């Protein structure tokens, strides 16, 4: 990786990675994999999404992130469909993950277990 040698290069790099990571309209799935998430089985869910989306021919980026703090509802998964607000699903097991793919990702239809954003951010 080339070094970043000035704040100007940093903002150029920021622009590039923003474009690369978030520029395209793409389905993005974030599995929250901090200690709480992993302890509740987030790894299985992460692998489930990777394998199943490929099997079902759905192009999506499956990302692992830290926990959002919803320990009472782990594992949690955030699904961001193009042009839609991100939706967080809680208590995701394989059955619910399957439902998320079939109902929400394929048809945009909400399912049970949604944790709406209950905070504001900077």
């Amino acid at each position, binding site marked *: 990786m080339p070094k*970043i040698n000035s704040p100007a290069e940093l903002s150029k790099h920021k622009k590039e990675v*923003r474009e690369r990571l978030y520029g395209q309209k793409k389905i993005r799935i974030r599995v929250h994999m901090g200690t709480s998430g992993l302890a509740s089985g987030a790894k299985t869910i992460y692998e489930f999404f990777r394998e199943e989306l490929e099997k079902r021919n759905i192009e999506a980026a499956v990302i692992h992130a830290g*926990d959002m703090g919803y320990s009472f509802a782990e594992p949690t998964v955030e699904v961001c469909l193009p042009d839609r607000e991100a939706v967080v699903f809680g208590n995701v097991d394989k059955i619910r993950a399957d439902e998320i793919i079939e109902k929400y990702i394929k*048809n945009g239809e909400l399912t049970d277990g*949604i944790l*709406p954003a*209950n*905070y504001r*951010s900077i």
Partner: protein
Amino acid sequence: MTKERIQIMVCGGTGCTGDQGDALLDNLKLELEANALENDVTVVKTGCMGLCSMGPNIKIMPGNIIYTGVKPDDVRDIVSEHIMKGRKVERLLFTDPGSEKMLSTEKELSPFRKQLRVVLRNCGIIDPENIDDAIAHDAYEALGVALTKMKPLDVIKTVKDSGLRGRGGGGFPTGTKWEIAFNNKSDEKYVVCNADEGDPGAFMDRSILEGDPHAVLEAMAICGYAIEADKGLIYIRAEYPLAVARLNTALRQAREYGLLGRNILGSNFSFDIEIKYGAGAFVCGEETALIHSMEGDRGEPTVKPPFPAVSGFRNQPTIVNNVETLACISPIILKGAEWFSSIGTEKSKGTKVFALAGKINNVGLIEVPMGTTLREVITEIGGGIRNGKKFKAAQTGGPSGGCLTEKHLDTPIDFDNLIAAGSMMGSGGLIVMDEDDCMVSVAKFFLEFTVEESCGKCSPCRIGNKRMHELLEHITKGKGVPADLDRLRNMCHVIKDTSLCGLGQSSPNPVLSTLENFRDEYEAHVTAKKCPAGKCRDLMEYFIIEANCVGCTACARVCPVGAISGERKEAHVINQEICIKCGACMEKCKFDAIIIQ
């Protein structure tokens, strides 16, 4: 994907479902069916939307329109107007009390939410193992600003003006600490990140390190620039393997980009960070003990002054800052001191992350502006007490803190108010207790922790706490006498006044505060020999209610000590002298004939 279908989200948070239960949800489904719309509109119940004070709330998509204060009878209008005709039901929109404007969308209502994420801004959002994702979310931008546009003293002034106080428990002004280290000239200075999180029930620091490690690395570099240090150390316990792994990845990536190392971002400033592992001793969260542990000595505290900012690691000026404190730094540099100091109360600025644990519905991490009340935290954000039980107390500050009771529910939470209430902010663990918790046992639990964690260097802490624990043990076993309570109180004060470090000085707090707030419970233990919460096993008695007992003999057969006697088909009796209070009989009884008294 075809045209977006209409979907209704009904808030299922405790605040919204409250008395009405699921009536709103049921009515909505019925109303849709009555209009033959059930196949066109999806209705789902969701978690809390964070707008509890306006509830019950529903959100309709597309459009993200939020209706507030919706009663079960309002669904008719919603279906006939909004769903069928596409017109907003204005009377159900929220009116901003300030501007008197009607607010309807998610975005407009967001400022009314109780939670504000500053520290947790990127947690769960970015991939912590991909520095590019962090950079896309503003990481290292503040470092660039500091290095090129600010002098070290400007950075210190900004942090000072922001009013940021240490989040590890002490609440010492961070900017002042940095200033002291800056003024102590030396070729060798150190920035230490204190990631030795040890309070029972607290996991804020762990989540930050696991979710957004770059926030901490960047802040350490900024601090290094401000105090003219070129070396950073992260002291973390080996029990946090995931946080350690992610920190190591983050460090490697930051070095590859030249964001750590020599001549950062083309400037003259060089800074690198090393990880030091602790074995997980509670006392090592105390800064002098932490420094000794890093130097390879026993993790024992020494008397301050000299403060580490004057003479710390290897006797050089050292800044020890908590993870959460550091995570506040970048936003302060980017958005300014004024922005940060506009959040919070007069003397406590910014936000605080709390780890909610115990008998609360929504266990987890929350971040609220300083000055949010305990009631808002517990009933709104935390979703209330589990199983509809009654709130009894909340323990803040872990084993060094105290408990807050019902009368403190409306106190704005900040550093000073918590101290005035006999507790302390601590690192942010908040353990909620309900009516079934015995406060004497709670005090005993925390003291047990301190006894275990005492380093043994000074006798008040080593021997005093042990003695106090024995007294509490006595009381919970029913062997206490009324004079024990005054003895306890005396010991608390002696230990507080004579212990060497913060651990000892604060260790009697849980006892003192429960004695203060729940004296009647202590008295019940020592005079009537009863535990009002029914927790202390030795003070309980199992009884068989004659009227309910059918004489099935199941209890007598399961009793391991043969304390239950009685003829078949006749009421049985428990011999209290023999009973060991194991509860096996109660579990076995199918007729609810056995009770605890």
